[in-house]
């Protein structure tokens, strides 16, 4: 195109460039910690600390499970995340359905509590859970961690499921009943497929919240050590590069799930 262009177009071009620049800056800003984490998993470090680049190695991948307490902590975190996610999804879906569909005594109180659980600061939640467990004489450990994680991630599942259910045409469920489906059959064949995106989104959020929670977990863990707790404990003496590798792998799985989800969504559309 020639150099003669209206002022408006030129200004629009400049605006476009600025937008591109801005977008890239945001992307770099968001991904730089991840890039650094991945990179330092390949750092051939000699000292305890892992903060300066000293050359490329695959050693940490080979020795991934050499540090047994770290491995235990990671396994603890994975098990706790899986169990609390499963519980959260089941309880949260039922609550979301009840809140989205039915009228019952205490509904508005429940709605308020759901909101309150999202907005409560983690420190407050952790401290009050601890005093609850102490005063109830509940031994702290994996079980109390699971209870705590279900508590803070429940609301997210409830909110995503409720959002799906209120947009679901109730006559779909009536049609299923009319065609001979039992109450359970209707739920399984009609309601569940309709709310599934909400259930999955809530479940993924619950898993993500659980696997890297530090604050609440640190109050109620007793002697059980999770992945984030172990890392924070190791900061003083220097974080081993295996942590970066594990972080990279967890991130990789997350990316795979996100990509799979996007592909499935595109195929559905």
């Amino acid at each position, binding site marked *: 195109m020639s150099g003669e262009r209206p002022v408006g177009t030129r200004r629009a071009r400049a605006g476009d460039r600025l937008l591109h620049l801005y977008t890239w800056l945001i992307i770099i800003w968001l991904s730089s910690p991840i890039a650094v984490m991945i990179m330092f998993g390949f750092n051939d470090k000699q000292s305890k600390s892992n903060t300066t680049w000293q050359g490329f190695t695959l050693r940490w991948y080979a020795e991934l499970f050499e540090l047994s307490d770290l491995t235990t902590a990671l396994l603890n975190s994975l098990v706790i995340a899986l169990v609390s996610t499963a519980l959260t999804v089941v309880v949260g879906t039922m609550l979301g359905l009840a809140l989205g569909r039915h009228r019952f005594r205490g509904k508005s109180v429940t709605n308020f509590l759901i909101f309150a659980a999202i907005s409560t600061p983690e420190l407050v939640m952790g401290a009050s859970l601890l005093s609850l467990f102490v005063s109830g004489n509940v031994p702290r450990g994996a079980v109390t961690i699971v209870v705590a994680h279900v508590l803070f991630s429940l609301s997210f599942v409830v909110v995503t499921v409720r959002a799906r259910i209120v947009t679901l*045409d109730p*006559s*779909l469920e*009536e*049609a*299923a*009943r*009319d*065609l*001979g*489906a*039992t109450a359970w*059959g209707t739920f399984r*064949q*009609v309601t569940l*497929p*309709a709310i599934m995106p909400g259930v999955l989104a809530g479940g993924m959020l619950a898993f993500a919240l659980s696997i890297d929670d530090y604050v609440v977990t640190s109050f109620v863990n007793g002697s059980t050590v999770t992945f984030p707790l172990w890392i924070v404990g190791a900061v003083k003496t220097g974080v081993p590069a295996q942590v970066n590798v594990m972080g990279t792998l967890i991130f990789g799985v997350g990316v795979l799930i996100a990509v799979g989800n996007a592909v499935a969504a595109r195929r559905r559309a």
Partner: protein
Amino acid sequence: MTGLSAIELEDVVKEYHSHGEVVQAVRGVTLGIEEGEFFSLLGPSGCGKTTTMRMIAGFEAPTKGVVRLHGQDVTGVPPNKRDINMVFQSYALFPHLSVWDNVAFGLRQRRTPKEEIDRRVGEMLEIVDLAERGRRMPRQLSGGQQQRVALARALVNRPRALLLDEPLGALDLKLRQAMQIELKRIQREVGITFVYVTHDQGEALTMSDRIAVMNDGVVEQLAGPREIYERPASAFVAGFIGTSNLLSGSATGGELAIGGGRVLVPGHDGDVTVTVRPEKITIGTDEPARDCSAVRGTVAEVVYLGTYNSYAVSLADGAEITVFQQNVHDATATAERGDSVWLSWRAQHSYVIGS
């Protein structure tokens, strides 16, 4: 009523409680629907048609009264245990299932053998002319096609009765008319009872064997289309079905003196309300014969409507009468605005409401 009714409602009442108020959606409906009949529930919006149908389907329990299906009291029987199916106004097709799976849904709930499902679903898609569309998803279909899937999904179960709640409401006029014919054909083909909800009187008149005209939660008249049109049981029915002129007054000696003329009501005395259809009335300038009903008036409005003219004629006492006159002779109107005219009709064309 002869024989066993397919569907029977006995003094059925339905009350809803909303915000501390009691709404009577249905206030005492009694009716019997015969096996194999095309039966319509017709009435204005909010008169309780859907509520009545939902009680038959089992989605709502009557507050009072009894619903019987094929002679059996079905109080407390859930919808999935009733041998009837429903076509929803919104179609309610399962969005995550293909056309084929939608239609197969009911048979699968009954654990029908696979070969039989395949055969019956295939046949049914053939009947509704969607044999090539089995693998489509519902949202990839047009409104009319979705409508036919909904119909197939219900009919494939061979219910003893099919309930249709304004099934053509969302379609445009052309498609509506095509589907009316289609529905009638399918009903004849499968030979089961159809209960059809509509607020479109034309639709009800053309399709039904019998019609229950509902108003404000009660059935005002239950009869065949011709009877309902010719002999409306109430002023409401007369006004709701087509256009109709209502004349009231006190009759003496079988005559109602009105608008400088008389309306013949043989055998009636005292206060009466008479209805006359606009197409039965002749408009003219000469005084009509003694054996006709005849009134005088002034033409207030002439509207050219293609195949006929519509006249609004004001009588001396202020009443207004609508007259339809076919454009058979020539394009010029019989009367002009402001003309003083005679309106006349045969005695048998005025019908005394409630007689």
